[in-house]
């Protein structure tokens, strides 16, 4: 019987383990140096903010693992000896494997800023970061957050929930500028400011200044401004957590190099999730994907391969979601920060400025390419179908009522969205009455 060892108990590793168990009787061992049990990384912020306790962000009760014969080991892997298929553990023991899945996750980026390792300076990724932020934010009055993306917003929300003021430094001229088009960036920026965040664009961190105890007491921007603060949040993205793999035979570039089957250069060694780097991005995606959903899909996929049904990573149409303070965001298909050549787009925003949708299609053919939506919930499965089947933008717009996923009694804006769409684009779409959405899925 095979012994499958998974390093990392995040969403990728745990999904892989669950699906291996569905498909086989192999011995399964998950090793983690972070926590004894799987937790939802995206929910760490809620523990700090007091919405939940740590035990509430564990998706499975503790008995789950034994019941499903998934062994857990709370220890750190120091080295991987691929010739003998052995793991050298920090505790001194060694563990043999037949197949090894690396699901090592990421670590926060640090770009060599002076003072980046001072006390009070941290990223937000791991359970240890959560413990540290609790410590670092005690008696803090102001936090400076560096890097305008999703984790930065989470960090800001956390600080504000404890009454700590926030200065938010964004290197670009707009918020989450490499992902969001201008209009959405502006909408989110307004919302962040509404929450009394001191949001600064075109501002870069120069150095972090220490007090006499080696703790951060201020930062200096490239413009020479000094901002006093007790916490510095480094949230300028994450990169694969692969330091200890670099000394092994496994090929590492930025991440662990894998083919579309998630196989590394070493037989019986696989990599999934944040730490995997594809030789070539699959289906036009980036070659490193650091998203909850892609980690889960890779876990589902590699489980098939290691249990004898070799399967290529083949994610469906791109989707993602997030929440910026009070505004929810969903995206389906591709809406790039700057639209590509040949693409047409349409943007609608509610007069109050907190709800919007942004639709992109191929100008020549009318093929629907993607949509960003803020403040309205929409149905994933319907977009998935439209994107796979090549629906036209007209079909999408006509069915906006059906694709709406907001709770009952919510106000609907489809009419005004479609009217303005027709006016601006000269197209002639008639909004269809809401249909039971399964009828559209089935048809």
């Amino acid at each position, binding site marked *: 019987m095979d012994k499958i060892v998974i390093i990392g108990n995040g969403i990728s590793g745990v999904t892989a383990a669950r699906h291996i168990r569905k498909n086989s009787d192999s011995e399964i061992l998950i090793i983690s140096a972070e926590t004894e049990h799987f937790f939802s990384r995206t929910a760490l912020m809620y523990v700090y903010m007091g919405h939940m306790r740590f035990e*509430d962000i564990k998706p499975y009760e503790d008995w789950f693992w034994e019941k499903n014969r998934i062994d857990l080991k709370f220890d750190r892997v120091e080295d991987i000896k691929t010739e003998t298929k052995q793991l050298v553990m920090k505790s001194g023991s060694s563990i043999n494997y037949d197949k090894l899945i690396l699901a090592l996750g990421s670590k926060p980026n640090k770009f060599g800023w002076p003072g980046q390792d001072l006390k009070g300076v941290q990223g937000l990724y791991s359970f240890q970061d959560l413990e540290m932020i609790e410590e670092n934010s005690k008696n803090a009055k102001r936090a400076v957050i560096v890097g305008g993306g999703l984790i930065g917003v989470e960090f800001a929300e956390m600080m504000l929930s404890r009454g700590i003021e926030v200065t938010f430094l964004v290197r670009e001229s707009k918020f989450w500028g490499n992902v969001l088009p201008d209009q959405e960036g502006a909408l989110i920026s307004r919302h962040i400011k509404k929450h009394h965040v001191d949001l600064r664009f075109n501002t870069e961190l120069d150095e972090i200044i220490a007090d006499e105890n080696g703790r951060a007491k201020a930062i200096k921007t490239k413009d020479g401004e000094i901002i006093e603060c007790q916490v510095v949040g480094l949230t300028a993205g994450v990169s694969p957590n692969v330091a200890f793999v670099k000394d092994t035979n496994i090929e590492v570039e930025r991440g662990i190099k894998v083919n579309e089957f998630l196989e590394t250069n070493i037989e019986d060694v696989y990599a999934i999730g944040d730490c995997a780097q594809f030789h070539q991005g699959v289906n036009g995606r980036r070659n490193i994907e650091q998203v909850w959903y892609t980690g889960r899909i890779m876990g589902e*996929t590699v489980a098939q391969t290691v249990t004898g049904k070799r399967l*290529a990573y083949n994610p469906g149409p791109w*989707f993602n979601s997030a*929440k910026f303070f009070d505004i929810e965001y969903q995206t389906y298909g591709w809406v790039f920060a700057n639209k590509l050549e040949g693409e047409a787009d349409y943007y609608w925003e509610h007069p109050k400025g907190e709800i919007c949708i942004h639709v992109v299609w191929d100008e020549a053919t009318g093929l629907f390419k993607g949509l960003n939506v803020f403040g309205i*919930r929409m*149905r994933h499965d319907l977009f*998935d179908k439209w994107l796979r089947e090549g629906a036209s933008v007209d079909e999408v717009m006509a069915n906006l009522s059906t694709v709406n996923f907001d709770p009952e009694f919510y106000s609907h804006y489809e009419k005004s969205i479609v009217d303005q769409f027709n006016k601006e684009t000269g197209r002639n779409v008639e909004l269809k009455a809401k249909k039971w959405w399964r009828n559209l899925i089935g048809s």
Partner: protein
Amino acid sequence: MKNLKYTGMVIFLIGLAIFTTTPFLGNVKMTETIMVESLNEQELANLEQPLKEQLIDKEFSSTFGFSRAFIAIYNAKNEELKANEEWGKVMWTKASSVALNLSRASNNSVVTQNKWLFFLLTFGLGIFGSLMYIIVDLKLKGPPGIKNDGIYHDAATNRGWIGILTAVWLVTFYIVLYFHPYIMADAISLTDPIKGLFKQGAEASQWFLYGLLYCISMLVMGVRMYIKYRHNKYQIVRTTSVLFFQVIFAFLLVEILPLFGLPGRDLKNAMPLDYTFLYKYNIQELLDAGQFGMFLIIWGFVLSIIVVPTLVYFYGKRWYCSWVCGCGGLAETLGDPYRQLSNKKMWAWKLERWLIHGVLVFAGILTIFVGIHTFTSLSGVNDGEGVSTIMGISAFDVRDWYGFMVGAVFAGVIGTGFYPLFGNRTWCRFGCPLAAYMGLVQRFKSRFRITTNGGQCISCGNCSTYCEQGIDVRAYAQKGQNIVRSSCVGCGVCSAVCPRGVLKLENGPEAGRFGNEGPIVLGNDGFKLNQ
């Protein structure tokens, strides 16, 4: 702003403290006239002598002290009669209710002399202070949106010392209300002025005090719901609905109908939650009330047998539990701060299924016993006494057991008293037989479900944490499955707290109601889903 909030809390606490002190403010002296006026013939015959010797014109500093002395005399007399087997003379009225009546009549305390003043000092300050505490959240908690910050850091809402104290207060309140109402005679009397608004000079009962307190708690905490969920129309509409049904149907109509000589009944209270409906005295009273009474009898059956399951089929049991029901209404308003405390573990779900269906069976047995008794006595069997014993068990005993264990202890003391420890739906989840009945319909034959939005779940756990019914919503959502559970009351909070827009309460065709049943969540084209 913060100071305003604290001031509101202090004012509320002063009102609460005065209310809690009223039992110690009594000044009770029973005169012979009061005794003669308040007791019935049999009681008078039995008790006149010992009362004259031991109680008349004696002063007590609380209704509690007076009542204990009275109850001792009452019980001693009854024991004596029983020992002598003088069954015809034994008194069957509860000693505590007789004691309450005498206390009310003989009390001449500062409270009873200044009822309006004390109403304002208790209810008035309580309402004013709590509204102040609540309304500043409009500014304090920032723009509309889910604001659950600090819930698990707050001793009031994380089973900390404030929560424990609150639970102790509530449990004590319920024990006094159900079993020792004479202790709160003063508190009851301060609601006389309100009762008087309905009928001049009428005196409030303990149930009037309770009903009034219930409505006011719901209204005040309803304001809190309106503020907390002002971004969420489902919650706004739903809160309005429960407030409407409580205030109009459960309170006002019950008070107003008798003014027109009609039986005051809560028209929305469905069997078997309403377990006294088939009791002989109730049916008799309705029969005596002419056409309207007849209508109430027929409505009672139509409601439970036709309306309830039909609406559950179309909308799920939420139409009742979180839109109409009084117990649900209190849970959704006063209980909302405690919703996260429900237990989500697998063992709790197992316990839930045993308990709630056990109560349903118990309620069924009660219905059979009581139904046979009422029907046979009204048809004149045994000279109108009817059949009260089946298989050696007395219908009256079954009534007493159910009334004590389910009606008082489970629904009241545990159901509400333990809000701050076990969460706000303990009764609805573990005990309510109507919820069990509707749950069976909802699970097996209904158009209702909570739809999971494809593969968007990030397993964060907000939905499960804030499910007052202890459903592990995440367990379904993270697999892309819809949530179809008998216990779901459709409060909609899972959907509200979800940061990724994953959950939606919906009514739709039964086909495909359970959603994705494959092991793979949407988003992975390496697999074929549902094929």
